[in-house]
């Protein structure tokens, strides 16, 4: 009895050690919800003498075991859940836990209160050129709009931890606005607009556990923008409509911070998130403008408005951080540097520069190097 007990203990130890590999054979890929965030898989490597001697192959094998095991997402979620429940520990780099369960981006909160990253001299030059571009657009009957979306850190500043509560009168956002005012570039600062909406809205405009505005919150900007554009083009555009409304717990990006925490449980269990079913009221011989949008991640929800391809022209493009191109009519992406940017702007009917108020580090993300080319192309058009 004692002998067999000891055998069982030793054997079960070996079995436990090999459990991750047993799961590897047993689990199907579809069984596991992948992790959100910066979890990257390691690529297999063929063994040869060189990579054995310089230990590259060995390191890769260790990485594969560490990163690619099928059981990993479940284990990571369990570990994160335990740390969260037992110790209030969150496994996310850029997370600032505010008051009343509000999560913020630490980096953006820091830029609101304490750190300047916007280079004033180069931004001044850029804004000056932006004014020139805006004049050219107006002259050519094209639509241009600069939009500042309030970061969650701005609109919920009362929920920031006390050490981040200081409202720096000279932060990047205010410096940018000052320059836009100085050079008389027309822009929308949507802060007051959203403050007004939030006073009466009964569904989340910004979710407590997301970085961005909600899909519902974004809809106010979508309608405002499309109405403005339609008026500019003489009411010839197809019209976005709301066909239905649905209430549920948050889906997709409306709780993106929470999703990136990779927990087993939900933090925000509210079922009060509003999701709109969009439709389109088509006009005869409707004008579908080709729209170029340059923006940060806040434009994500605008891009995902499923009826936009019915309103914008097929070759409209979203230039994410002026680096990745999202096409309007399909989900394919390409790189901005592979575009003929002069042609794109020449053919465009509308240009939107959209950015959130505290994400101005590296703004405008490379467009400052191409704006001269664009102006020149438009001048010669």
């Amino acid at each position: 009895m004692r002998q067999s007990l000891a055998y069982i203990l030793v054997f079960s130890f070996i079995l436990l050690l090999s459990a991750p590999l047993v799961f590897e054979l047993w689990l199907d890929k579809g069984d596991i919800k992948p992790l959100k965030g910066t979890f990257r898989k390691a690529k297999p490597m063929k063994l040869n003498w060189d990579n054995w001697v310089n230990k590259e192959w060995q390191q890769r094998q260790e990485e594969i075991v560490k990163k690619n095991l099928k059981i990993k997402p479940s284990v990571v979620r369990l570990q994160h859940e335990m740390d969260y429940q037992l110790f209030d520990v969150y496994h996310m780099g850029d997370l600032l836990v505010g008051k009343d369960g509000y999560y913020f981006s630490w980096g953006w909160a820091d830029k609101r209160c304490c750190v300047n990253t916007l280079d004033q001299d180069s931004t001044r030059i850029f804004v000056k050129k932006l004014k020139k571009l805006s004049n050219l657009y107006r002259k050519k009957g094209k639509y241009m709009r600069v939009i500042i979306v309030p970061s969650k850190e701005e609109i919920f500043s009362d929920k920031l931890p006390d050490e981040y509560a200081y409202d720096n009168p000279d932060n990047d956002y205010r410096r940018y606005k000052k320059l836009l005012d100085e050079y008389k570039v027309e822009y929308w600062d949507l802060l007051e607009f959203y403050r007004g909406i939030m006073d009466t809205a009964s569904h989340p405009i910004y979710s407590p556990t997301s970085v961005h505005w909600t899909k519902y919150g974004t809809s106010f900007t979508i309608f405002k923008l499309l109405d403005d554009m339609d008026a500019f083009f003489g009411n010839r555009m197809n019209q976005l409509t709301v066909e239905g409304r649905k209430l549920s717990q948050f889906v997709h990006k409306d709780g993106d911070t929470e999703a990136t925490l990779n927990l087993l449980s939900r933090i925000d269990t509210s079922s009060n998130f509003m999701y709109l079913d969009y439709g389109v009221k088509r006009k005869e011989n409707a004008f579908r403008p080709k729209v170029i949008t340059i923006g940060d991640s806040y434009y994500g929800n605008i891009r995902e408005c499923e009826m936009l391809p019915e309103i914008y022209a097929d070759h409209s493009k979203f230039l994410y951080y002026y680096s990745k191109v999202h096409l309007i009519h399909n989900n394919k992406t390409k790189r901005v540097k592979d575009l003929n940017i002069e042609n794109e702007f020449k053919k465009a009917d509308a240009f939107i520069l959209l950015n959130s108020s505290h994400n101005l580090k590296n703004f405008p993300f490379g467009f400052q190097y191409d704006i001269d080319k664009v102006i020149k192309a438009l001048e010669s058009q």
Partner: protein
Amino acid sequence: MIFSSLYFLCIFLPLFLLIFYLSRGDLRKWVIVLFSAFFYAWGAPVFIFFLLASSIIDFFLAKQFEPGVNNRKTFLGLSIVLNVGLLAYFKYANFFVDNFSILSDAVGFGTFSIEEVILPIGISFFTFQKISYALDVYYGRNKPLDSFLDYLLYIMMFPQLIAGPIVRFNDVSEQIRNYRENKLNDKVEGVYRFIIGLGKKVLLANTFAEVAETINRIPIDNLPLADSWLGILAYTFQIYYDFAGYSDMAIGLGLMLGIRFPENFNFPYLSRSITEFWQRWHMTLGAWMRDYLYIPLGGNRVSKTRVYFNLLIVFLISGFWHGAAWNFVIWGLFHGFFLMIERAWLGKLLKKLPSIIQILYTFFVVVISWVFFSMEFSDAIAYLGKMFSFGKIPLYTKVSNKVVFTFALGILFAFLAPKQKQLNFFNSAIGRISLKPSLSLLTYPVFILILVLSFMVLMTSDFNPFIYYRF
């Protein structure tokens, strides 16, 4: 590959244990040696040939040491010169060349350099074992091993190959000579011991390491007082649980294989003097230094002044053994100095004080010594300056509840040593299954929990440093 890596835990170890337990007789020795060679080659693909070649030479040289053989002293000298020479070259060549270059530049002869010499992993550990074998055979404490396979088993056994414990030949010669099927109890004890070690390393040491690393990234000039203390205390517990955990894993693996390695730690932070500390910290290094350096230098049977000098020499070499850098030398001398003054007068004074004061004194000196151990000398002085300056006091580093909990556990396990009675009970619970099978069953879930939690941390976190790996 370190014991706390997922590759070792999920692939190497289960595969090895399976093949090892399925094989019988001398085949088991072959399984150990072949897996050990693969284990070493994994981290040192070129140096495995160096290790094998030097082992062949050492094995045959040692055959010439036996009493009665002509010129045996010459052969011993050859063996020692070979081993110390290789260690000196691989570990210290860069250090000496760099320092001579600085000196030569200072006196106007300009600088010079050599191509960087890469340190073979574990060289400090296996060289000391080879020397131990040579000296034990030479002084007739043991006969040389008959088979080269047995010699490789002693030198290369993977549980102790790259980070100790430093097993003196005397400690295991009989076990290797009469190697046979180990008792089932030992295997179970080995499993438990391995899991305890893994838990110490992964659950405690790694958490302390994250705190120490975070504080280490703050420029010393901006370091507030509280953070400087938190940083060095975190390091103090990190290095203890890191190395003690690794030693436990090595001892556990040894037991699973049928070899009982000597203990390496015995609640060192409970020591009442630095002298006692060295009887409880890295005990196998201390024993090696005592047997093969301190005693041959004359030990305690020489004049007082000579004893002090010997102590300083031993600790200078101990410090230098840890790494080719001045901070290790200073760390060694720092300990040597306290050992000297304890022997001269402080020891007698300490004995008159309450135990708690003695423990606090020792802990304080050890904590200060880790400052020298963990950073360059100039940084260490600046860091000590921050620890004892009362300018900026508040703690700026964010300390999570998890860190607080880990500190509490770390302190508890480091300072609350069980009494012999409790230790016997514990041993019977975890190891001696034939005595208390019910207790083994009761404690088993606790160990499974530690193993599962360690796995979870290893899969989740990329942070898994190991301090003694580089020695």
